[in-house]
């Protein structure tokens, strides 16, 4: 019921356009409008995909995943370090939002610095 009527892509919507049907453009992918893509979230997932591709290329160039025992006393490979970096980035962003609030891009910078140290030492 709710999701049967199809409207235009999400990015063009503002509060003023609530409830108004839009003309269907050439690039309206009706079958995925329910996924509510925005360019920001798409950019995020493209970034994740790029990370995975980069890791694959890295693994091709230097196979084995460079395992080592890091400062946490854990045996980690490159993949583990990427996982830890991404998960920490999530927590850094959430912590920033919850404790500080504005200027979230600083949290992003902190996350990248943190990821660098994770890849270097963990």
């Amino acid at each position: 019921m709710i999701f049967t009527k199809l409207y235009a892509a999400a990015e063009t919507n503002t509060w003023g356009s609530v409830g108004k049907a839009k003309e269907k453009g050439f690039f309206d992918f009706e079958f995925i409008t329910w996924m509510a893509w925005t360019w920001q979230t798409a950019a995020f997932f493209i970034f994740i995909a790029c990370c995975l591709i980069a890791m694959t290329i890295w693994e091709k160039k230097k196979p084995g995943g460079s395992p080592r025992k890091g400062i946490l006393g854990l045996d980690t490979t490159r993949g583990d370090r990427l996982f830890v970096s991404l998960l920490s980035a999530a927590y850094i962003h959430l912590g920033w939002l919850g404790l500080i609030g504005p200027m979230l891009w600083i949290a992003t910078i902190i996350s990248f610095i943190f990821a660098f140290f994770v890849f270097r030492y963990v």
Partner: protein
Amino acid sequence: MNKTVNQKAWFFVIPVFVLVAFNAIIPLMTVVNYAFQETFGNNVFMWEGTRWFKQILLSERFHAALGRQILFTLIILFIQIPLGIFIALTMPKEGIGVSVCLVLMSMPLLIPWNVVGAMWNIFALPDIGFLGHSLNALGFDYNFTQQSGDAWFTTVLMDVWHWTSLVVLLSYAGLRSIQPAYYQAAEIDGASRWSVFRHIELPKMKKVLTIAILLRFMDSFMIYTEPFVLTGGGPGNATAFLSIDLVKMALGQFDLGPAAAMSLIYFFIVLTVCWVFYNLMMKNEGQS
């Protein structure tokens, strides 16, 4: 002999990949998309940025639900793990008793979760249920539909009834894998029952217990069906654990944005705990 490199085997992975894409990756991406937008249905979405995350992180309701969830998980872990080990230790080691015990132990695990909830709901009803009626007849003022303490007691009791057997079965498997030579050596040394447990049985059960704790943690942390059928999260919000609260927000109030933000935070917590346990298990593997 030179092996030819053949990557065609990757095609066999495609079905699994498609399956995972449809039941995990695409829904998860959608949740991420929803977490940044407001919607009133009809596929109309308005960009809200990080507003929902901020709202959830600062919301009393989320803190309360998370607190209840952690408390519940800790309570059932502290009951089920020791109780499970204890039952496994007292189970017979040979003879017909083994099969009887194993079958009896598996019974609760085979019952669908909503049936468990319904069973316990009727069992605990204060006027007609066996448990509720008996408790009231004994002079306890018991009513799980109205008193939050009783609701907690019933929910915990139900979970212990349902899932302790899993810990028992895992611990029992761990105990059976210990060579008799260890016990013989302990007997020669004149070790007490406690030191046999502390220095032989417990270390040997470490691997299975890690898995048992992980499974029990995850299942109880994501518990939904049983308390939903038993108490529906009530009375009030007394037993509204994270999943119940999440569904209330997403489907009850149709607040898809905040619910999506909440599920992502929930997801990160679960992911972190999984990662910690995974590393613990890998350490155990490395030691043996």
